[in-house]
Structures are given as structure tokens and as C-alpha cells.
């Protein structure tokens, strides 16, 4: 669309204005605000978009202030290669006319034709609003003071979208696509929550499957438990049947009964043994008692006899003691008389001894001298004899060894002679009185035997001759004896003695002389222990002592003194003896007297005891005679033997019955019976319990329920599988649609970016405009790769970006065959000079393809633009 001529009459402040000669490209319309520059834009909108019949505020808004006129607007424009003329009059007699080379329309037809031509939606009633009713013209015709605001795409979106679709294809899918997306969203929402969790029937199905699985598990558990219980029941039944089949309880009971019988027998045997034992013990006690009684009787007799003996002996002793007492009395009297005599004799002897002793001391001195002298003499004589004996001993040649040799030879001779005699014949003679015997002509003493070793002839008187021939060997032995005799004789001759006896005698002599010499030597030593010379000196000394004593009165007689001393001694001895005698006699008498008294007391006691025992014994015997005691003892002994025999028999019987075996068997049988009975009871109880339990389970029909749940579960699982697929598919579908839509939007806005870029390059390189793909409004501005929100930009930048975007969108509409003029009413008032010149380049570039009307009050700003200028007044 290209505007060519605009004529306005009675529209707001414009009484009449004509703008003509508008070119294809850039046109500048200069006029200050008072001149009605912006009213011109309003008139343009009114003629195109307001219905000519519009009333109310929209109509009132067209009238000049306070006037009632008929606003009228004429517009000539080119569209689709044809020239169009449009005229509308408002308020009073509203009119509309549209004319083109191909036709002419008037009235309401005009409105329809315009909407069709320009692609807008006229309002149902009231005034037309740019954003709602004017299609792309709401976007492309910028009113003064709004250039820096949002584009206000509004109803223009459809047209642009359509234009974009012709450019990039049907990327967004249109209404149908949105409906499918909505359906897919709903499908997805049927299955998924916003957080992608299952929901709705799908979720319920999942829950039902879970619940069924739980029920199935529970039922299966119960079913298996049921199965196990059936097996348990079978085991119980089998065990019970086995008990019955084997009659195990009956067997046990029979065993037990037999064991009880055996046990009863054993108990009786044991009881019998105990009784026999008791009887044996009783018999033993009875026997012991009888024995005790007999022993007691014997003891009583013994005590009585002992008492009798003791009494007799005591009486005898007492008699003896009385004799003794009398003797002691007499002895005591005699001793007193002798004591007086002895004391007289002792006094006299004392006098005699004193006289004799005085004489004797002299005598003793003399005698001591005489004794020493005799001693000396004796010693000298002994010395002499010792020397003689030593000479005698020396005279004998035979020694003890020589004698031994001789005796050995003599023994040899005697031995050989004896052997010779043993081998010889001994002949004893017993002649009749007086008859003689000669042997080999020699007379023979008939009383002595004759030994014949060789043949001999014996002449027996009165008888004749008798020749004797001794047997073998006698002759040799006789010769041996002769040789031995010769050896002896030769030795004797050598010693100078006749026979062994003489040799022994000579040796005796020699030994005697040696003994004599020794004896004399000992005598000398006894007499003169200090030697003979010392003795001689002692003699000399005594002589001198006697010489000193001299002679006294009277001649002392030692015998008399000694007799007197002996007398005194004897008399004193007598006195002492008699005194002791008297004392002893008295003591003996007192002791005898005491002993007698004691003995007599004892005798009396013994007599009483004897009497009592005798009485006791008599009494006992009167009660039970000795014979009866004996008889009782015999009887008890016999009974004990019988009882012992009976006990032995009972014990043997008990042992024969083997009570240990009986006891063990009894225990076993009891336990077995109990165990089997308990087992049967337990089995029966368990069987009943199981039957009850199974009966209860049967009523519920667990198996049936399980099969049912399993079938249902299978069905639900299948359904769940389908539902799951649906859920997955719904999600997949929605995601696919959303992804496709998002990508499409990217492509969708591609052309806008393409168109904006050349303008922006002129204004500021490396920048981009970010549009909302749905509203097509500007969202931001990308500079050096950084995006800034549109409303954060400076006001100047905002109006520049907005103008550039509008130009780009107009380009796109043109590309789709919907070429529309762009009108900018003081759209760049906030742009500095430098930018403004760049914007001039932008406008020029846009004007190459578009018709651009710049309405401005600043002529200066656009004088250099190089575009035709139209001034309005």
C-alpha cells in the first residue's frame, strides 16, 4: 500500500488539509503540533479503520471542539498495482465510497472491502483501536510520543505471522497444531504429574498391582503353610497308624504288666529275706541274752568263791600276825636288858684300850725297824735265788720247736703203728685158769691181746699150737711203723733224751727255771720297790727314829692293845647292835600291831561280802537253777542256727530271682509305656489341632483365593503394561511436540532477525533484537553477545530499536505481498544528532522498498534527509 493523497475536512482541528504528491519511498511531512500533524495520522486511521456509521465517543472525537459539522476524509492509495480512492464522511449523513478500476463500493460494503484489502478486523461496535482492530497498521503507524514504547503488535500479529509463514513455511502449525499440543498435554497429564510422577488410573493400576502382589505373597505364604500343615498331618497320621499297626502301646503295656508281676515276686522275696534277717537277729539276740545270763551266773559264783578265799586267807594271815606280834613283844623286852649289859662292857673296854695303846706305840717303832730289816734280808735272798734259776734254765738244750718236731715224729710212728695194728689180727685170750700162752715161743700175758701182722705160732697150753697167718698188706704196714719208729729214735738220740716224755720233761724243767727266775725278780721288786739300796737306806732311817723315841714305862703288848681295841669295838658293836635290835623290835611290834588292825578290818569286810554274795547266789539259784540256764542257752543256740539257715535260703532265693534285672526291666517297661502313650497322645492332639486348623483354612479356600488373585494379577499386569506403554507414549508424544514447537519458533523468528540485521548494522554493529516468538514484542537487545531487557535501554535506544524493528516487520509484510506504508510521527525525538544521521541512513535503506512517511515538527532535523518535504499549516 502506498499513500498518494490525503484530504481532510472538518476533522478535529483541521478545517481543510490536503497532502499530495506522496512518493514511493521516503516522504517528510513538516508541521508543528499546532498545525495538526498528529491529527493527520488520526484522520488516516479514521478513514481506513473506523466505520463511517460509527457513533458515540469515536464520532464525537472527530468533531472540532464545540462544532457540529460533518467530518470528511478522502484518501487516494495504490494497492495491488491498482489505484484506489476512498472517501468517508462521519457523524452527519455518514457516507463511504470506495473506487478502483475494477469496481465501486459504497456504504457498508466499503467497510468489508477495506477489511479484506488491508487484513484487519473492524470492531463490532464503538471506535477502532490500533492494537485491536487495525492489523499491521496498528504496528506500523507510530503515534507521537509512543515510539519508545513496546511495539504494540496486537492484532498485527496475525498478519505478521501469516507473512512469516509464507517466508519460513507453516512452522508453527497454526490452530490445529495448538489443539494437538493441547490434546497431547492432556494425555500426558492423564498419566503424569507436573513432577513426572505417575498419576490417575495408571497410578491406581500400579497401586492395585502392588496390592495384588502383596495379597498374592500373603496368600502364597498361607497356601504354603497350609501345604506344610497337610504334610505335618500326614506325618502324624502315619505315626499313629504305625503305633496301631505295631500295637506298640499294647506291647508296652504287656511288658509292663509282666514286669510288675516279676517285681511283685522280687518284692515278696525281698520281704521274706528281710523277715528272715529279722528273725535271725532276734534269735541271735536271744542266744546272746541266754549266754549273758549264764555268764552272769558264773561270774556271781566266781565272785562268791573269790570272796570266800579272800576271807579265809585274811583270817589265816591275821592269826599269823598275832603270833608275830607276841614274838616282837618278847624280843623288845630282851633287847632292852642286853642293851644295859652291853653298855657296861663297852665302858670297861675303853679303859683297857687306852693303857695298851700307849705301850704299843713304842712297840710299833721297834717293829717297823725289824720289818724293814726283814724285808731287806728277803730281798737279798730272792736276788740270789733268781740268779740260780737263770743258771738252771740255761743248762737245758731242748727248745719248744725241737719238742714239736719230736712230737710230730712220734705221732707218725703212732699212726703207722695203729694202721699196722688195725691190719693185724687181734687175738684175745681167755684161757682156763692158769693155763699159759706163748707166742712164737715167747710167753704171753693171757690178759692182754696180741696183734699179729705176720705169720705167728701161738702155743696154747692144754690145747696145742695155733698157727695164725694175717692177710695182705699187714706186713707192709708193720714195716712202715718200724721206719717211723726209727726216725723217732734217731731224733731223740740227737737231742740226748730217751723218749718224747723225757724231752717234754727237760723242756718243763727249763721253763720252770725261767719261771722261778721271774718269780724271784717279782719278789725283789715287791720287797724293795725302790730297789734294794733304797730299802737299805729306809732301814737306816727307822733305826734312827727308834733311837730318838727311847724306852718308855711298861712294855707294850700289841696283842693286848689289839684285844682291848677288839673288845671295845666289840662292846660298841654290841651296844649299837642291841640298840638297833631294840629299835627294830619295837618298830616291828608297832608295824605288826598296825597290820593286824588293818587285816582284821579287811577280814570283817570280806566276811560281809562273802555273806552277801552267798545270799545273792542262793536267791538266783532259787529263781532259776543253773541247769535251767544251761538248757535255755542250748535252746537259743539251736534257734539261731535255724534262723541263719532260713535267712541263707531266703537270700539265695532272692539272688536267684535277679532283682536288678527285674528292677531295670520294670523301669524300662514303665518308661516305654509312658513314652509311647505320651507320643500317641501328642500325635493325636497335634492331628486334631491340624485338622481343626486345616478345616478353618479350607473354609477360606486359600487355594481358590490364591488362584483368583494370581489370575487377576496377571490380567492387571497386562493392563498395567498397556497403560505403561500409553504413559510412555503420551510423554514421548508431548515431548516430541514441545521440542518440535520450540525448534520451529527459532526458525520462525529467523526472518525477522534477517530483516533487522542490515538496519542495525547501520546503527550499531554486532547487535541484535530479541523478539518474543508468540507476541512478537521486543524482549531485549543483544549487544556484544550480552542481552539487555528492552525496558532497561535508554529512551533513545528504545525508540531507535523499535523503529528499526517496525521497519523490519514492514519488510516482512511486504515480502508476503502485504506491503504497507510506515508512518513515524516524531518517532526519533530522543535520538541525538549523531545517531539521528545514522537513522536517516536506516530510513533511506527502508525506503528503498517501503513507503515511509515521517511526520515531524522539526524541519531542521530532516532537511538533510534528501526526501521531498511537504509542509502543512
Amino acid at each position: 500500500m502506498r499513500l498518494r493523497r490525503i484530504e481532510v475536512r472538518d476533522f478535529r482541528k483541521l478545517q481543510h488539509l490536503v497532502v499530495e504528491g506522496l512518493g514511493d519511498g521516503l516522504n517528510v511531512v513538516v508541521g508543528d503540533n499546532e498545525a495538526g500533524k498528529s491529527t493527520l495520522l488520526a484522520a488516516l486511521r479514521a478513514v481506513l479503520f473506523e466505520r463511517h456509521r460509527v457513533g458515540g465517543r469515536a464520532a464525537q472525537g472527530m468533531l472540532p471542539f464545540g462544532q457540529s459539522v460533518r467530518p470528511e476524509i478522502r484518501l487516494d492509495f495504490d494497492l495491488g498495482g491498482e489505484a484506489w480512492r476512498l472517501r468517508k464522511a462521519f457523524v452527519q449523513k455518514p457516507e463511504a465510497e470506495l473506487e478502483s478500476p475494477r469496481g465501486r463500493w459504497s456504504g457498508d460494503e466499503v467497510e468489508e472491502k477495506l477489511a479484506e484489502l488491508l487484513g484487519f478486523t473492524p470492531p463490532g461496535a464503538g471506535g477502532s483501536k490500533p492494537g485491536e482492530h487495525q492489523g499491521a497498521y496498528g504496528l506500523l503507524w507510530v503515534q507521537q510520543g509512543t515510539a519508545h514504547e513496546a511495539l504494540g503488535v496486537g492484532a498485527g500479529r496475525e498478519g505478521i505471522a501469516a507473512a512469516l509463514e509464507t517466508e519460513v513455511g507453516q512452522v508453527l502449525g497454526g490452530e490445529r497444531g495448538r489443539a494437538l499440543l493441547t490434546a497431547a498435554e492432556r494425555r500426558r497429564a492423564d498419566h503424569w504429574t507436573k513432577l513426572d510422577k505417575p498419576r490417575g488410573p495408571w497410578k491406581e493400576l500400579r497401586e492395585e498391582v502392588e496390592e495384588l502382589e502383596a495379597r498374592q505373597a500373603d496368600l502364597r505364604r498361607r497356601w504354603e503353610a497350609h501345604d506344610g500343615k497337610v504334610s505335618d498331618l500326614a506325618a502324624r497320621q502315619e505315626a499313629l497308624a504305625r503305633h496301631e499297626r505295631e500295637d506298640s502301646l499294647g506291647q508296652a503295656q504287656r511288658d509292663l504288666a509282666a514286669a510288675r508281676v516279676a517285681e511283685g515276686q522280687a518284692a515278696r522275696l525281698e520281704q521274706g529275706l528281710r523277715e528272715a534277717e529279722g528273725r535271725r537277729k532276734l534269735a541271735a539276740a536271744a542266744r546272746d541274752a541266754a549266754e549273758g545270763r549264764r555268764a552272769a551266773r558264773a561270774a556271781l559264783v566266781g565272785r562268791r568263791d573269790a570272796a570266800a578265799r579272800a576271807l579265809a586267807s585274811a583270817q589265816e594271815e591275821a592269826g599269823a600276825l598275832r603270833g608275830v606280834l607276841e614274838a616282837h613283844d618278847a624280843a623288845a623286852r630282851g633287847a632292852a636288858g642286853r642293851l644295859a649289859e652291853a653298855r657296861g662292857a663297852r665302858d670297861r673296854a675303853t679303859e683297857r684300850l687306852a693303857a695298851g695303846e700307849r705301850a704299843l706305840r713304842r712297840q710299833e717303832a721297834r717293829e717297823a725297824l725289824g720289818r724293814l730289816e726283814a724285808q731287806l734280808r728277803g730281798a737279798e735272798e730272792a736276788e740270789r735265788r733268781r740268779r740260780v734259776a737263770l743258771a738252771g734254765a740255761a743248762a737245758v738244750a731242748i727248745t719248744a720247736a725241737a719238742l714239736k718236731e719230736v712230737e710230730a715224729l712220734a705221732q707218725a710212728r703212732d699212726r703207722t703203728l695203729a694202721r699196722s695194728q688195725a691190719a693185724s689180727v687181734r687175738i684175745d685170750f681167755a684161757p682156763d685158769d692158769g693155763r699159759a700162752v706163748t707166742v712164737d715161743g715167747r710167753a704171753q700175758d693171757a690178759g692182754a691181746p696180741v696183734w699179729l701182722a705176720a705169720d705167728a705160732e701161738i702155743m696154747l697150753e692144754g690145747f696145742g699150737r695155733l698157727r695164725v697167718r694175717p692177710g695182705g698188706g699187714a706186713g707192709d704196714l708193720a714195716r712202715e711203723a718200724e721206719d717211723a719208729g726209727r726216725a723217732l729214735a734217731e731224733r731223740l738220740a740227737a737231742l740226748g733224751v730217751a723218749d718224747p716224755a723225757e724231752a717234754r720233761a727237760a723242756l718243763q724243767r727249763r721253763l720252770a727255771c725261767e719261771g722261778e727266775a721271774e718269780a724271784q725278780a717279782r719278789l725283789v721288786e715287791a720287797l724293795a720297790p725302790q730297789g734294794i739300796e733304797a730299802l737299805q737306806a729306809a732301814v737306816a732311817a727307822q733305826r734312827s727314829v727308834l733311837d730318838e723315841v727311847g724306852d718308855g714305862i711298861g712294855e707294850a703288848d700289841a696283842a693286848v692293845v689289839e684285844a682291848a681295841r677288839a673288845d671295845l669295838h666289840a662292846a660298841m658293836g654290841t651296844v649299837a647292835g642291841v640298840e638297833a635290835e631294840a629299835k627294830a623290835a619295837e618298830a616291828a611290834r608297832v608295824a605288826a600291831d598296825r597290820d593286824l588292825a588293818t587285816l582284821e578290818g579287811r577280814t570283817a569286810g570280806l566276811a560281809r561280802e562273802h555273806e552277801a554274795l552267798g545270799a545273792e547266789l542262793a536267791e538266783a539259784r532259787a529263781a532259776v537253777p543253773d541247769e535251767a540256764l544251761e538248757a535255755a542257752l542250748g535252746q537259743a543256740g539251736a534257734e539261731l542256727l535255724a534262723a541263719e539257715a532260713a535267712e541263707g535260703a531266703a537270700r539265695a532265693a532272692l539272688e536267684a530271682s535277679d532283682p536288678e534285672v527285674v528292677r531295670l526291666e520294670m523301669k524300662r517297661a514303665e518308661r516305654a509305656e509312658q513314652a509311647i502313650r505320651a507320643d500317641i497322645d501328642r500325635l493325636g492332639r497335634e492331628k486334631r489341632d491340624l485338622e481343626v486348623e486345616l478345616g478353618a483354612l479350607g473354609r477360606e479356600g486359600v487355594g481358590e483365593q490364591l488362584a483368583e488373585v494370581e489370575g487377576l494379577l496377571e490380567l492387571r499386569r497386562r493392563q498395567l503394561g498397556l497403560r505403561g506403554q500409553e504413559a510412555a507414549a503420551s510423554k514421548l508424544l508431548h515431548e516430541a511436540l514441545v521440542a518440535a514447537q520450540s525448534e520451529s519458533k527459532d526458525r520462525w523468528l529467523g526472518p525477522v532477525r534477517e530483516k533487522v540485521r542490515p538496519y542495525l548494522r547501520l546503527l550499531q554493529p554486532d547487535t541484535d533484537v530479541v523478539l518474543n516468538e508468540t507476541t512478537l514484542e521486543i524482549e531485549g537487545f543483544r549487544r556484544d553477545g550480552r542481552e539487555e531487557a528492552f525496558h532497561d535501554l535508554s529512551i533513545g535506544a528504545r525508540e531507535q530499536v523499535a523503529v528499526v524493528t517496525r521497519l523490519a516487520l514492514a519488510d516482512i509484510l511486504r515480502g508476503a505481498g502485504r506491503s504497507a506504508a510506515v508512518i513515524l510521527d516524531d518517532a526519533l525525538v530522543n535520538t541525538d544528532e549523531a545517531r539521528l544521521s545514522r537513522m536517516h541512513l536506516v530510513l533511506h535503506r527502508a525506503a528503498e522498498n517501503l513507503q515511509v512517511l515521517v511526520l515531524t515538527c522539526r524541519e531542521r532535523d530532516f532537511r538533510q534527509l534528501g526526501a521531498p518535504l511537504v509542509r502543512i499549516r
Partner: protein
Amino acid sequence: MAFRFIHTADWQIGKPFAHVAGDPGAELRSQRIRTVQRIAELAAEAQVDAVLVAGDAFDSNEVADRTIFRTVEALKPFGGTWVFLPGNHDAALAHSVWTRARAMGLPDNIVIADRPEPVDRWNGRATVLPAPLRRRREVMDQTDWFDEAPSPEGSCRVGLAHGSVAGRLPDRGDSSNEIRDDRAERARLCYLALGDWHGALRIAPRTWYAGAPEPDRHKANDSGHVHLVTLDGPGAPERVEMRAVGHFAWVRLEVELLGTCDKAIQALEALGRDPRACVVSLVLKGSVSLSERDRLERALALWEARLHHLDADLGGLVDDPSADDLDALDTAGFVRLAVERLRARAQDPADPEAAAARMALRMIYLDHLRGAEG
């Protein structure tokens, strides 16, 4: 005089069908008991001598008391002898559904064959030799004793066992509860009534599986019947009639789609039975465009209401947005960008979110359609 009986097994009363939610599941459960009642009525009509239940009458030993009670109630129409054999699901354990049933007090005509002892209740005409399982898995062949089991002269010997016949059944890896394939021969049986295999099957001479009377799984085998057996005498061949008693048809449909969903809808339309009695497992594979997928889902919602139960497994069905789909999206701009990207991911087998991307495309496609509609 002939001996006539019904051979059935594998009722598995108490099986929960919990994967079928709500009322249809409850209906499946209660139908099993109604089918038992149907068997009782059939037995009364046919005036048989006995009904032999060859194991797994109950789904487990742990079914509810009320389930046992209701089952015993359902037996009432037939007053003749019922012989129940404990199978692996309801093995004669120490405590089992059988001990519990006995504790509730059972009528005299119900025999629980939980011991390997001959059952002779027909005046010597027949002797039933049961091989109860007393554990869930027996290692020894429980029918060994049949060979030496005594029976009166002229009596028809009928074996009753639960397990797999050695080496004859497919899909049987384990070797527990095995039964010799020549047991009928060795034990001179007129008929060996077996349970455990849910389809009706003559597996060896005189050796039969009756199959489950009420189907309970999507397996292409012949279940839903009982055997009405007539034995004319020890030497005579057995006469076996199959009688349908099952109510629900368990149908498994596997359809491979290429671009459009027509084949799936055609398969459902071709069921040829009262849809209310059909339990359908529909497994779809292949790929469809988004518009076809939308159509398919609307159709399945319809069939879900029509059938007793529809279990549609679309796990193997891949969305293959066609150019038309994307054109229909009629989008430009970012939506097209998103769709192109999702499509690239959906088509990249290495992308872990390929499936989610496919679903996302389906979603935006549906959103778009709904937007267009309203």
C-alpha cells in the same frame, strides 16, 4: 447283563478364571458346577450304573468349603454310584478336598476311591479298580496293582486312573503320574478310564481319556464331552458314545493382518456359534494403518460386548502409519516435524522407544480424528 457308565474327568471345579474379570469370570466359574449337574441329569436319563470321575474333579485341595458343598449338591439328580478318583489337582493327601467332603457328610452313593482297592457295587457285574494319586506327583505307576487285582468271575474290570500314558501324549515333558500304555491288556481291563488330558481321546486299546466336560482353555482339543460307555461283558469290545455337555466354547483365533483389519472382523463373524457362549482369545499379528487400527478397535469394542469374553492380544500388531494417515493428519509446522520424528523412531528397530513412538503416533492420529470430528 451289560454294565453302563459315564466316564468323565478334569472338572477342576474351583478354577478361578481370574484373568476374566467381573461377571463373565464368575459365570465361567459357576458354569462348571452347572455342567456337573448336566452330567448328573444325563446319567439319570441314561440310567447308567455309575459315573466314574477319573481325577481332578476339583481344581485344588484348597478350594473353599462352599465350592465343595455346591458341587455335592449338583450331583443330586443322579442317585446311582459316583466314583471319584483323586487326581494330581486334588490328590488324596492327609488333608484334602476329600477328607473335607467326608467331614461334611456325603451320601452313600458317593464313593471316594482314595485307596487302591477294588470297588464292587454292582453285584459282580463290574469291578472298578481305582489308582488314586496320593501325592501330586507319583513316580511309580499307580496302576501296577491292577494286574494282580482280584475280581469275581464274569465281572467287567474297569480301570480308573489319572495321569499321562507313557510316551503317547504330546506336550508332556515330565514323567510323573505315568501309566503304561498296555495296562488295559495286562490287567485284562474292559475299559481304562483316564483323566488329566483335557481332550477326549482313545489313546490305546480300551484306554480312553474323556476330556474335560466344560472346556477351560484355548486349546485345540476335543473337550466338552463325557463318554457314555457300555460294556456287554468281559470279552466284548467297549461301546463308547461321546455326549456333549459343555456350555462354553473356548476359541482361539490367530489372525495376521496386513494393512487392513478385515480379516480379524471376518474371523469373529465366522465363529458360527452363539457368541454369548464363546470365550475368545484373539491374537492379532501383522501391521495395520492407523485408520484401520482405529476401525479395528471400534469393532473389537463391539465384539467385546457381544461375546461372553474376548481377550484380544494386539501385542503382535504393529501400527504402520500410511501416507494417507499422515496426510489425514493434515498438519504443518511443528506438528509435522514431531510426527516425522516419531515416525522415524517408530520405524527404527534399534530404538528402545520404537513401540512408544508407534503408540504416540496412534495417539496423535486419534487426537487429530477427534479434533476433526468435534
